[in-house]
């Protein structure tokens, strides 16, 4: 567990990236950290380019944007091109349902969207990805993410999101 993480979550509007960033941030706050979450998007709320950034630090976060990411999640080819193609030294997570598979020691390609569909809702792909990212990097504890899900959702929706989170964690544990 590092003192500071800078994370980019990029894809298109409607994929739940900003919610994903918020939940990651909330989990980090539960662990006593400082968080800044920012977003960038165009005028289209669905289908347009969308990016969330999260910075987690033990100390005060002065500049609010990511300068050098410690990990990237890319859910579209465009996001992969812009935010991940330049890096070989940080974990890059991407969705093989939506992107072409590629080779690289730092690349973690999983069919997040297909797995989410099999769980019953494609909207949970973001939670599967978050589970995988946390398992690889130790970014936040899975238990913290579970608490955040339970706060935000209730009943079956909460259960489905927790199931998605755990299936993401399992991708790495296996």
């Amino acid at each position: 567990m590092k003192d500071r993480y800078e994370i980019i979550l990029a894809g298109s509007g409607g994929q739940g990236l900003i919610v994903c960033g918020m939940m990651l941030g909330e989990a980090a706050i539960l662990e006593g950290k400082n968080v800044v979450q920012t977003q960038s998007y165009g005028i289209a709320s669905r289908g347009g380019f969308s990016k969330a950034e999260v910075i987690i630090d033990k100390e005060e976060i002065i500049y609010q944007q990511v300068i050098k990411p410690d990990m990237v999640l890319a859910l579209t080819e465009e996001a992969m091109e812009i935010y991940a193609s330049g890096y070989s030294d940080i974990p890059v997570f991407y969705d093989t349902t939506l992107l072409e598979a590629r080779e690289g020691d730092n690349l973690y390609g999983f069919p997040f969207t297909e797995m989410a569909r099999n769980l019953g809702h494609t909207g949970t792909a973001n939670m599967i990805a978050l589970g995988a990212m946390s398992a690889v990097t130790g970014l936040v504890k899975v238990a913290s993410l579970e608490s955040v899900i339970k706060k935000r959702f209730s009943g079956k929706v909460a259960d489905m999101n927790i199931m998605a989170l755990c299936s993401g964690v399992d991708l790495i544990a296996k």
Partner: protein
Amino acid sequence: MQREAKLIQGNQAIAEGAIYAGARFFAGYPITPSSEIAEECSRVMPRIGGVYMQMEDEIASMGAIVGASLTGAKSFTATSGPGFSLMQENLGFAVMAEVPCVVVNVQRSGPSTGLATKPAQSDIMQVRWGRHGDQAVIALSPSSVMECFTLTVEAFNLAERFRVPVILAADEIVAHMRENFTLPAPGEVKVFDRKKPSVNPDSYKPFEPGEDGIAPLAAYGSEYVFHVTSSMHGPEGFSNNSPANAAWKVAQLHKKIERYRDEIVITKTFDVEDMDVLLIAFGAVTRAARAAALEARKEGIKAGVLQLVTVWPFPDREIAELGKKAKTVVVPEMNYSGQVAGEVTRVLGPATDIRRVNKYNGQIITPGDILEEIKRGAKEVL
């Protein structure tokens, strides 16, 4: 009870700040990037006995909050560039009629509808001079989610104290940014309520300043019956076009702010004690400036930051005092024309080495952008 830290957005913190300050009336027309303020108010206001009014446009929104304030409510609206332009006429009414209220302008890239989702700091002069006529104005600019809260409370306090509209000149970056936020307990942050008249209703003069320079404000619907007009008026509120009265009124609009200037102007400094390079920043760009100053220090250049928390009245004295100690001054801002840099030049004079860092493409100024200018300045001047 331990107060819990939450992850909330700047816009939410502005709504929370307004409610904490006692605002119970919001009228507005949602516009990116300010919409979450209206959204939060539509959810919360009805639950706490307040009013959320969705208006047909920003002209009406501004009119509604002026009317609500005159009935005694703390009122506010939130908008962005295009809506702020529409509000100018009624904002001028609030200035002239001395109606306390708060207008949040979350600045986005313009002119006109511009880049709706992208940040800018290009309304600073509009905030100051957007309305016709001679007037003083108060505007604050937050750089963090916590400041979105505290400066909204402060905006209401200043509006109530001085019977003026106060503008919270936020930007898209702070408005959409989420950070740790712990809601202060009631009483933890000072809240000021407007001074009410204590005289007999028959002898109440709604525009006659007390010894403190401010006229007490009664509420419409109370036993105090009074007249409010946007035209030139005397202390009793009725039309008065005499030169002597006009001179008194226009001066009064300025003097009530000038007299309390030191209490209104808020600045913050970071590492300025030994600095050679002074960065002057406001709003979200303060953060890039602070990061750049820290980087510069790692490279042996002594840089410090002056944050203009209050942008109007302009912090002339604070800038003059630090500016004379600096060998070079760098002003980063998200506009082309250097709206604040121009004011800094007015204060420090043309002989001072003043450098501008401007970005006007909807992208955020980075510490790297500022550092580059710091290094150039250090090379040329130090």
